[in-house]
């Protein structure tokens, strides 16, 4: 017979000391009982323990660990400040404690330290979150320089990119070469490739969840940077000390200003993009906190020409705007909630005007998607074996797939707009992170998604399971299953990520996409803080969408027919399969840090109306993908980093022959010859049966940091493609008079590109 032991809850908020920034993903671990939890996205934690004295270890990547002895006889709230400061008297700094991969039940999740994003050399010196994510196993990039993300055989539309709870639809600048996220304003970046918790839904292949910093609550700070193509500035500080703070981050390119003087007067044009992130937060009470954050970004390309009176003006612009209002409330030491109201808008505009004398022709094309979302999430910690998350969300989408307005001097003016489409997407979820025994831990969840568009609705249960079984103290085997539904489709007629790619909703004729993914993995902690992860996965996808061959966002199928304006008829749906294995050897801390990632994978797709119904490799199928990332810190002043990547070439369709494809010419009905020669056509052979040359590249960067009295200055010199590999961006045929004179030419975008940048932190 055992005496009844009272249990009490230790809860609180984990913050970064010095700035007051709340910290997600921090491990809170009770050594004696061998149980622990992680702080949630808002830094909240809750741990139920027996009455008495306990040693609590707090550890987070990139921060000094805290080893604290706490005695408690009642429910207690303790807020920890990690970093350089010490929150409690009993606390002892212990740098050995760190987050353990073999403890987590979740698999296929990678947390990317924001500092590493800043350390890794980048194209033209522009630090980019999505480019760093591309270096992880299981993630592939689309083409040279592109920020497009392809996760475990999924397309770029199958990634849920979230910034402070807001969906971001087109996360790219400069036609995909840079992403919207430069790291300056970010606090955390998490990539989920599989084993999705039930709290996530709406996309098939991955979740990239980014949280913006809140702003320093203690004192004013800033960071400014000047690079080859852009400059940036971040300012943060308290509005009311320890009560509220702000952060504002801005970036703008100056390519347009640099090239303008060199353009001839009759032909002017340019391009720029800018980003603006802003965040405010206010602590209402001990238990309530409000956050208001937003992102605004725009790209604009424009040109004007005047050739002997013939004037041509054109522009292409696109941009995102997001806004999130969040309210954190702590009901008790066991129950935390967050409520968010979110606004997202993406729009694309194309304008063109031709003028000659008094005649003109004007064309404006527009496309947009706008979301209003309400989201309510709870974290409930009933006891030390369970961490239950539950909640729901509703997204009200407004799609405007295309709108064309034409005006001209010859009275042929008109406008047409495909009617806006309103849809509602909602979901309810519950998941339990359940410590079943000392060795077995599982995350079991269910999400029920619901979608309504016009008179069509879909309801889909989505079971999610992931589990780990500890083999030894430092190794575990993990497995997961996830079923995902996606009610949006992205239509792209090109192989590159362009802003003209259209987001369209599922409808009665365009079914939602669905995927199922199974994964099995091994996690091993090795000496010297090195982690090894090996995972294998199999994923099938159904009702994935693609433009029918020959259709695109504006060159519609048949401009004169009724189906010409019906975008649904230009889309075909099919199936996809992907399987492979991933290997990641990672060292997160120390003088040397970095990782080696390798992916071996196969991806196939099949559409009834493409390639005669036969399955084929999509463009981004990649057999081998290797990334080696090294960051070496010589001392506090010098840091060297280098990245080497290798990938099998993209699968493309290459013409192999030309032939006389004569059409039936009915006007020649009375002559013998109806089959007039109208030019040669290409014979392509099998779809995507040709492989581009393998892609490989070495980037090297060195940072020199100098601490001055009032600021810290960092100078970075980096070389993108240091050994000047001519990687193919695309191929074209230079046709000769005879077949023997034909040549396949390759175009390379980026030879070796040195760049320099300066930044100042104050």
């Amino acid at each position, binding site marked *: 017979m055992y005496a009844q032991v009272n249990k009490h809850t230790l809860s609180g908020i984990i913050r970064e000391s010095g700035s007051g920034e709340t910290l997600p993903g921090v491990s809170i671990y009770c050594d004696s009982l061998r149980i622990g939890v992680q702080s949630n996205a808002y830094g909240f934690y809750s741990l139920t323990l027996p009455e008495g004295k306990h040693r609590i270890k707090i550890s987070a990547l990139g921060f000094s660990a805290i080893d604290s002895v706490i005695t408690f006889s009642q429910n207690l709230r303790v807020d920890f400040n990690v970093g350089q400061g010490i929150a409690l008297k009993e606390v002892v700094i212990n740098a050995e404690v760190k987050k353990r991969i073999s403890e987590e039940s979740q698999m296929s999740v990678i947390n990317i330290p924001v500092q590493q994003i800043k350390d890794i050399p980048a194209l033209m010196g522009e630090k980019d979150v999505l480019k760093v994510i591309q270096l992880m196993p299981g993630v592939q990039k689309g083409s040279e320089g592109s920020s497009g993300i392809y996760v475990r055989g999924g397309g770029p539309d199958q990634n849920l990119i979230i910034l402070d709870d807001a969906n971001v639809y087109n996360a790219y600048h400069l036609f995909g070469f840079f992403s919207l996220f430069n790291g300056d304003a970010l606090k955390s970046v998490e990539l989920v490739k599989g084993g999705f918790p039930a709290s996530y839904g709406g996309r098939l292949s991955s979740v990239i969840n980014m949280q913006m910093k809140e702003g320093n609550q203690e004192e004013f700070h800033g960071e400014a940077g000047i690079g080859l193509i852009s400059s940036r500035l971040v300012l943060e500080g308290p509005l009311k000390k320890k009560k509220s703070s702000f952060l504002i981050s801005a970036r703008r390119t100056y390519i347009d200003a640099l090239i303008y003087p060199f353009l001839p007067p009759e032909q002017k044009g340019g391009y720029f993009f800018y980003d603006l992130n802003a965040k405010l937060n206010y602590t209402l009470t001990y238990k309530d906190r409000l956050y208001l954050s937003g992102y605004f970004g725009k790209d604009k390309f424009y040109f004007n020409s005047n050739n002997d009176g013939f004037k041509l003006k054109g522009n292409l612009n696109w941009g995102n705007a997001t806004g999130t209002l969040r309210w954190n409330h702590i009901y008790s030491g066991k129950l935390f909630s967050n409520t968010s109201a979110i606004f997202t808008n993406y729009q694309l505009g194309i304008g063109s005007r031709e003028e000659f004398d008094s005649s003109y022709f004007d064309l404006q094309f527009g496309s947009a998607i706008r979301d209003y979302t309400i989201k309510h999430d709870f974290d409930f910690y009933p006891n030390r074996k369970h961490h239950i998350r539950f909640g729901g969300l509703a997204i009200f989408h407004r799609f405007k797939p295309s709108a064309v307005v034409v005006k001209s001097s010859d009275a042929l003016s008109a406008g047409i707009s495909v009617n806006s489409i309103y849809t509602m997407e909602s979901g309810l979820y519950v998941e339990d992170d359940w410590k079943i025994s000392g060795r077995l831990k599982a995350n079991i969840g269910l999400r029920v998604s619901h979608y309504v568009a016009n008179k069509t609705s879909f309801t889909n249960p989505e079971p999610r399971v992931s589990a780990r079984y500890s083999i030894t103290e430092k190794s575990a085997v993990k497995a997961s299953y996830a079923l995902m539904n996606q009610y949006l489709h992205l239509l792209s007629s090109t192989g590159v990520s362009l802003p003209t790619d259209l987001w369209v909703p599922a409808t009665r004729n365009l079914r939602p996409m669905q995927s199922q993914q199974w994964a099995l993995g091994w996690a091993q902690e090795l000496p010297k803080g090195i982690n090894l992860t090996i995972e294998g996965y199999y994923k099938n996808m159904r009702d994935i969408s693609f433009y029918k061959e020959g259709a695109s966002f504006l*060159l519609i199928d048949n401009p004169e*027919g009724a189906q010409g*304006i019906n975008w649904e008829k230009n889309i075909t749906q099919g199936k996809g399969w992907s399987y492979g294995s991933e290997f990641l050897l990672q060292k997160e801390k120390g003088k040397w840090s970095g990782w080696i990632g390798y992916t071996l994978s196969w991806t196939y797709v099949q559409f009834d109306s493409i390639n005669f119904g036969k399955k084929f490799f999509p463009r981004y199928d990649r057999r081998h993908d290797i990334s080696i990332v090294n960051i070496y810190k010589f001392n506090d002043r010098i840091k060297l980093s280098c990245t080497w990547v290798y990938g099998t070439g993209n699968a493309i369709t290459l013409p192999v022959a030309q032939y006389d494809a004569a059409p039936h010419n009915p006007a020649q009905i009375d002559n013998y010859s109806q089959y007039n020669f109208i030019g040669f*056509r*290409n014979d392509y052979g099998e779809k995507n049966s040709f492989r581009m040359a393998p892609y490989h590249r070495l980037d090297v960067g060195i940072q020199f940091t100098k601490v001055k009295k009032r600021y810290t200055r960092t100078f970075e010199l980096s070389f993108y493609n240091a050994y000047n590999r001519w990687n193919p961006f695309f191929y074209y045929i230079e046709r000769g008079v005879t077949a023997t004179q034909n040549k396949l030419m390759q175009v390379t975008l980026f030879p070796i590109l040195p760049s320099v940048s300066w930044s100042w932190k104050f």
Partner: protein
Amino acid sequence: MVMEILTRYQSSSVLLLQKNLATIIICLLFAACTKDATVKLPDIAPKPVLVCFISPEDSFIRVKLTNSIPLYSSSTKNYPFEIKDAEVMISNGITSAQVPWYKDSVGYLLSTSLFPIKPGTSYTLQVKIPDGRVLNAFTTVPVEDFPAIDFSLIRQTVDSSDFGISYSFDYTMKWKDVAGIKNYYRGVIYNLYADSSLGADTTVQQSTEFFETDEGRDGGEIRLNGQGYLFYSSGSTIPAIGSNFIGYLMLSNRDYYLYHKDLFQDMGDNPFSEAKINFTNIEGGIGCFGAYRMAKKRF
């Protein structure tokens, strides 16, 4: 209306922005480097290309037979472009006939008075080339009685400028779909005009080509708008505008429809568009053996 305008202008600013968008911008912003590709190229032998469309409304069965030309191969010397010595047999399952070689640029020709093409009948075509290659194809002639076409001019606009004179014609073509079966339509409208050296109506300029199915409109009226455009520069002889338009409507089988639609949508060598693999229903080669019914209307 907008679609008409888009059609008219799609060769200018719209296509400039849409088709070449990425190319233009990339070329402007970066000094891209070009060199010979260093990948192993496919070395394939030429494939036989067979084109044959049969119709009860046509007086002949015409077969065009050529070899494809590999793009990166030198193995074409033993393969003539036009194949003249093949044995071409057409069969309706009961009887068969040889389609004999006629002459260059026409190909193989057989009068339908010798081998009639009948609605609703299936035909096979077999080609044996002396080098051993054999082609087989199969097609079925649509059975429907062809609907009457209503073809009318909506508007004619004449624009005069210092550069010359232009004529714009807006017209409409409509017909009633045959209910109960999936129908495929290809329409071609030509401008005809007099050429003083050749006589009236001898010069034909294709104006519009369209493709339609009756999906969602089975048995209903199908209406299409088209536009003709003629331009004569200053100083040139402006021909008399007479009976200007002739419209052909082909009610075809799926093979004929898909083959022609693919040709119409061919994007050429644009590296930024998904390559379009053209339709073929020729076993042992490429090309099309298709069938159609045809009606025409002139005004």
